[in-house]
């Protein structure tokens, strides 16, 4: 259908990004193809050590699913997006396709092994999330291609993650956010993945911070080194939410807190997380 309508057509999922943009006349599509009436596009399945989300799965469905209880970084993300009403409409597929530099899902899912299954009249292809988002508001999707499914590998045993955002109120995007996934063997970190949101055109992977943790016993000194690496990795823009320096400091502080929660969860402890409100 998108192929027939040409590139003046756009897909409509939850509409929680597209409709506000249309009202502002930033988007002005001639045709909208509403995916909400397509059956079988909203589901959460667990299969072979991976969790699969239909593209139209709402943030609230993920928030309230038993799977996100067992995979708590997904709950941190889903339950913290905007407010109840927006979570009841907004979808995981729409969020990733929108590739907003402040969107929560991309930041969180980049700490996981995540694949995007895309579909067009010509082909079906699977693109790793790290290749899917190419720039701010840009993805590899062709104009007649859609996101069909998001596949997230379950973390190994002994691995824990956490996602924290600093927000001015609920129905706004975060000022800065931080996602951390740590795989631990006793006190020693085997693998770390740290990604920051809202501090670059795309989510920022702080690889030097990952390196600072890997192979080490995580103590205050090691965490301080990782925090320094985070400050260097991010490239925030000053805006009404704060200066670049403020956001750098915030990014490092959120990572510190997320590391401590991820370590507890790696040990199997249950820790409830709520975003931090100014």
């Amino acid at each position, binding site marked *: 259908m998108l192929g027939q309508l040409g590139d003046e057509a756009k897909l409509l999922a939850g*509409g*929680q990004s597209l*409709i*506000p943009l249309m*009202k502002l006349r930033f988007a002005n599509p001639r045709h*909208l193809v*509403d995916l*909400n009436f397509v059956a079988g596009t909203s589901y959460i399945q667990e299969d072979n050590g991976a969790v699969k989300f239909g593209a139209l799965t709402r943030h*609230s469905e993920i928030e309230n699913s038993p799977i996100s209880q067992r995979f708590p970084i997904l709950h941190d993300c889903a*339950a913290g997006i*905007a*407010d*109840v*009403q*927006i979570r*009841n*409409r907004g979808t995981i597929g729409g969020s990733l396709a929108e590739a907003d530099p402040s969107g929560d899902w991309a930041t969180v899912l980049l700490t996981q092994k995540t694949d995007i299954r895309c579909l067009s009249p010509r082909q079906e292809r699977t693109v790793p999330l790290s290749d899917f988002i190419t720039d701010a508001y840009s993805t590899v999707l062709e104009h007649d291609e859609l996101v069909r499914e998001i596949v997230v590998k379950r973390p190994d045993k002994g691995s824990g993650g956490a996602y924290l955002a600093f927000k001015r*109120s*609920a*129905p*706004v995007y975060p000022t800065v956010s931080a996602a951390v996934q740590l795989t631990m063997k006793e006190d020693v970190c085997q693998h770390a993945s740290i990604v920051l949101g809202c501090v670059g055109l795309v989510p920022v992977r702080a690889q030097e911070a990952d390196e600072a943790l890997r192979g080490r016993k995580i103590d205050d000194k090691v965490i301080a080194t990782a925090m320094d690496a985070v400050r260097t990795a991010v490239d925030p823009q000053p805006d009404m939410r704060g200066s670049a320096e403020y956001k750098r400091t915030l990014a490092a502080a959120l990572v510190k807190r997320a590391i401590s929660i991820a370590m507890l969860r790696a040990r199997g402890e249950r820790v409830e997380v*709520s975003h931090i409100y100014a």
Partner: protein
Amino acid sequence: MPEPVDKVSIQLKVNGKPYAVSVEPRMLLVELLREELDLTGTHVGCDTTYCGACTVLMNGATVKSCTMFAVQADGAEIQTVEGLEKDGQLHPIQKAFGDSYGLQCGYCTPGLMLSTLQLITKNHEPSETEIRKAIAGNTCRCTGYQNIFKAIRLAGHNLKGA
């Protein structure tokens, strides 16, 4: 000037009553409710998906009706504030908002009552944190929220007793 466009026929239920209407595809759900169906209890505060004054229930889940097209409600059940009252009797939530002074100008109140309905239908005794999360998408410029918290707790209590 916007070009004229073909209208689309849709059917929906609002507060239990079936409607068949023809709407322009660009019409928002809140415009349908207020301007075509004359249900002006649903308010428009910001028109930018922030304030929640336009909150209604669609198939039992709260949505911001300023951020949905009317055609997307084809086949759906919508509940607005007008549907709370039954047989001239105020709904327990409406009573609770009145008894607790949970409103002043009343602009935010319809949206808040529908967010309350979604919350307390599942949970008669919500905690402070649960209430905060449930109404995070509803802005009130008058009350300072404390009496709204009281009203929601009382509404849960009323509903349990009902």
